[in-house]
């Protein structure tokens, strides 16, 4: 059985009022343990709603959402699900609770009722895993956006999460902060086998994923590896999404008859391919 199984999931906001909005309509999705998945979509396509279902912040109106075999609608199992699925939100300022980095990372394990010594161990481990161990005694407002997001990731890791959901976690960061957060996530995914669900509209982040889901108006309209999804640039453009710059450039160069492979995703790949083909 897959780690996350979403079956026929529907979610309706403001049901029964004039503003009734079907944010998710009959969505099916599975994520295996240890997979890195990206969810793409324009604003209002339902991707954040989907994320909130996976750790039970929202509950299904129809269908079900299973995490490691636990059902989000079961109140008993809900807390186990939240422990296993950590979430990092968009605004780095609005998810740190305590006035010190280490106290904030300890917040999750404290809620789980762990012993102080065990909490201490976990906090040290989690901060080291995201490279923030030198900032234990810092106040959150003294950190950069990227550092705050890494502390938020550590807060989830300290609960021993198996899966990390990044809900546009890099959208408010500068390029440097984005890079440091994504590097930390990539490392956790590779070294610790963390399952990652990355909700984003940055195409280069999606390019790092094993699988990409493209959403539109509450439906999943495309699924596949980044190569498969980005190969068809036209449908993506219709959804208001652009393919990564390197993919677009490769496509245009190929049209002009340059001999390049079709599965290039990153700028580095493109440079290597060009050098291999044309620099002697």
């Amino acid at each position, binding site marked *: 059985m897959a780690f996350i199984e979403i079956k026929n999931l529907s979610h309706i906001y403001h049901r029964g009022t004039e503003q009734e909005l079907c944010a998710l309509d009959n969505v099916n999705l599975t994520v295996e343990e240890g997979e890195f998945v990206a969810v793409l979509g324009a604003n209002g396509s339902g991707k954040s709603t989907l994320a909130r279902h996976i750790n039970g912040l929202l509950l299904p109106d129809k269908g079900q959402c299973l995490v490691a075999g636990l059902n989000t609608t079961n109140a008993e199992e809900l807390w186990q699900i939240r422990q296993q699925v950590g979430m990092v939100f968009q605004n780095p300022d609005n998810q740190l609770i305590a*006035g010190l980095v280490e106290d904030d990372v300890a917040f*999750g394990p404290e*809620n789980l009722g762990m012993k102080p010594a065990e909490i201490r161990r976990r906090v040290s481990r989690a901060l080291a895993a995201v490279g923030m161990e030198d900032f234990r005694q810092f106040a*959150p407002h003294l950190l950069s956006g990227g550092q705050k997001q890494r502390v938020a990731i550590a807060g989830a890791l300290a609960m021993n999460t198996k899966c990390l959901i990044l809900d546009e976690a890099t959208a408010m960061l500068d390029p440097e902060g984005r890079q440091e957060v994504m590097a930390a996530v990539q490392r956790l995914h590779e070294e610790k086998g963390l399952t990652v669900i990355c909700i984003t509209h940055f195409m280069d982040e999606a390019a790092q994923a094993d699988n990409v889901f493209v959403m539109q108006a509450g439906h999943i309209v495309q699924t596949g590896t980044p190569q498969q999804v980005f190969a068809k640039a036209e449908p993506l453009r219709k959804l208001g999404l652009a393919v990564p710059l390197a993919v677009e450039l490769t496509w245009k160069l190929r049209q002009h008859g340059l001999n390049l492979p079709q599965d290039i995703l990153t700028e580095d790949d493109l440079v290597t391919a060009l050098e291999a083909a044309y620099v002697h």
Partner: protein
Amino acid sequence: MLNNIMLGQYFPGDSVLHRLDARVKLVLLLLMLIEVFVFTSGPAYGFITVVTGLLIFLSGVPVRLVLRSLKPLWWIVIFTFVIHLFSHPGQELARVWHFAITQEGVVQGTLISLRLLLLILLSTLLTFTTSPLQLTDALESLLAPGKCVGMPAHELAMMMTIALRFIPTLISETDKIMKAQQSRGADFTTGNILKRLKNMVPILVPLFLSAFRRADELALAMEARCYRGGQGRTRMKELRIRRVDYWAMAAFVVFSMVMGVSLYI
């Protein structure tokens, strides 16, 4: 103006004062502040000043930093001193226009200003040596007996934790909004008080809106991290009374005795 506020500034360290249990610190501070009010003789104040100096030294917090916390309050101290200088009848030292500076005035003014300075210094010393979370944990623990009469001790402490955490964030946000409004021609520096207050509205409305949005998102983030109230919650930094705390209490008793004796000098 806005970044002078030193409220809730923690200076990480490992001094004796840092190691003290936050509850002990909080209670001893309160008692000490009361004593500052009760024992108002010259020698007593001299003694408290020396003790405060000693505490600052013990805390390992740079003196410069401690003094900086006084900055926003200097003018209050000076104002108090000047008022007292002129308002006590007694032996006249000098005369400014209609007003007489008296010897009693000088003495009273000095004592009252000193009292203010001591109050501020001692309280900031607490926030310098106690992390916000320890402080609120101490508060929760001290209020815990009130739980049986329905006092929401955990909720109050959590509210304080969040408030302390968000003060700097909201201050910098206020700064940003002010600049945004000023760049569009808003004027916060001229006109009478009424007009200035009215001009604050374009700052307060966006500030409140954003604070509510922050609160909403924070609640979601807390829920995502398994927060479900104080029930079954443990602490990484447990409050525990240790030997150093008993020593501190003993030192306080000695301090109080000296203060008592100073009344008869």
